[in-house]
């Protein structure tokens, strides 16, 4: 059996400039990750649309890709830019999820388990995310959901790395304050010391 060597993302990208179909392995490798990132940000329906749009745009913009290894961070950047078109929808979803504790937008692998196990913390996190500025939220979720480094976030958002550090520092502060105060309220409520007991 002859094993064909697996071409790197950059090889595929370079080859696709002369042979467009060479771009297809990039879709095969990364569609799942990009869709998952979008799914966790804006729910399944928008993720379906935006993930398709991400790869169509990536193909058209491939000549300007500045990646030095995997093109995944670059794809996350495109997806994040596309998300700007629906940041209001994202905020509405997060607020509603934060208020109700019910996530109506995301499809879960195990619906029942996911609702029970993760909804309490996730709803808290949704409230925190809803309170953040869009760019700050982008930076945080590229870091936490897409697992990008500060340098990669800086590249894909096209901002200096110092700005990324600053955004994430503020995001950490916001999260710390919000979660601490929510935790305190929750403990007060549980102990009946909130004035009602």
């Amino acid at each position, binding site marked *: 059996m002859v094993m064909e060597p697996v071409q790197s993302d950059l090889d595929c990208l370079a080859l696709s400039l002369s042979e467009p*179909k060479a771009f297809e392995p990039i879709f095969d490798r990364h569609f799942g990750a990009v869709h998952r990132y979008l799914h966790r940000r804006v729910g399944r329906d928008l993720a379906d649309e935006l993930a398709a749009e991400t*790869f169509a745009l990536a193909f058209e913009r491939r000549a300007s890709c500045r990646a030095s290894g995997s093109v995944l961070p670059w794809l996350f950047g495109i997806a994040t830019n596309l998300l700007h078109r629906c940041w209001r929808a994202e905020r509405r979803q997060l607020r509603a999820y934060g208020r109700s504790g019910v996530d109506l937008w995301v499809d879960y692998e195990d619906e029942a388990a996911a609702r029970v*196990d993760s909804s309490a913390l*996730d709803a808290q996190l949704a409230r925190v995310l809803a309170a953040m500025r869009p760019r700050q939220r982008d930076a945080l979720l590229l870091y*936490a959901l897409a697992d990008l480094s500060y340098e990669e976030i800086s590249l894909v958002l096209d901002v200096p790395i110092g700005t990324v550090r600053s955004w994430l520092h503020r995001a950490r502060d916001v999260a710390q304050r919000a979660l601490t105060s929510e935790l305190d309220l929750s403990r007060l409520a549980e102990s009946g010391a909130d004035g009602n007991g």
Partner: protein
Amino acid sequence: MDELNLFRDFRSEAAPARWEARRRASARLADVIDLERSLEHAVDERPARVGIVRWAMKRPAYVGLASVALIGAAATALFLNTPWKASPGFLERAAAALPTPKGRILHMKTELTTTSTDPPCTVTFRPDESWADQTPPYRFRYTYTTPDVPPSEIDTRVLVCAGGKQEEVGGPVNARLVEFVPPNTLVNVSPFSPNHPSFLPLTQNQTHAPDPVTTLRAAIRTGRAHDEGSTTLHGSKVERIRIDPSPTGCIPCPPQPLYVYVDPDTFYPVEVRGVADLNLDGVHVVRVELNIRYLTYEYLPRTAANLALTNIRAQHPNACLKDFWGPGSKPAC
């Protein structure tokens, strides 16, 4: 504890992409790849320069302005999409006789006249013209007239009586449109963009190229149409077909039946007449009579020269191509 790490588990149980979503995305990418390949092969064209345009190019009024120009397109879409009622005689013969358009390019030239009583006016727009390849990815090019009204005057009552200016768009069906912007720029318009001129009949949910006959052929088997017999129109014998309003699926839906006049021998459309209630500003509703005359309706062979007619980039080989995205990219034009 680093609070940021808490977010790593946010919605971590989200399910993977469904097969259908993956298939649709893959098909979308294949269309874009095919577009580029066919451009390289069918037309001797230098690569368009690629740049970006920020969202500053938004024209909030665009959709409204385009919509009035698309009165005709909407009426035509109704003709395209309305199922025809199977009835004996003419419609059965039409179903049997209609040609299979694959491997051809449909060339249509239509002239739209709108008549309103309040406000009182009759406007005949300059002819719309389209070339639609009947082979996947069903590339088309469409020149049409849109009212020449400044955004500050968007008012249904003004728009229905406004004169027009010529615009041009193109692309494969179910994909992003490319719009020509004078003097020499092609702008890639995403369906997510507020600039997207909402050519619903041409760009979304279509499984074939824009062609009344393609739909007619399929729709006669299952639909709701009534053959009202022969009559004379502009000195020629035609067959009149009444299409009752569809309960779903068309915006704006004509409130009354639409009448389609077709050539009794070829079954090609000759004229469409109907009524539409237009509400283009969200405030005022104006009833207009529509009259769409088919000045040209023909199938062209799929030669390189005719394919170039379906291809907006081939028509503007030296135009600068602008896009709406590109992290780190700078406008090239």
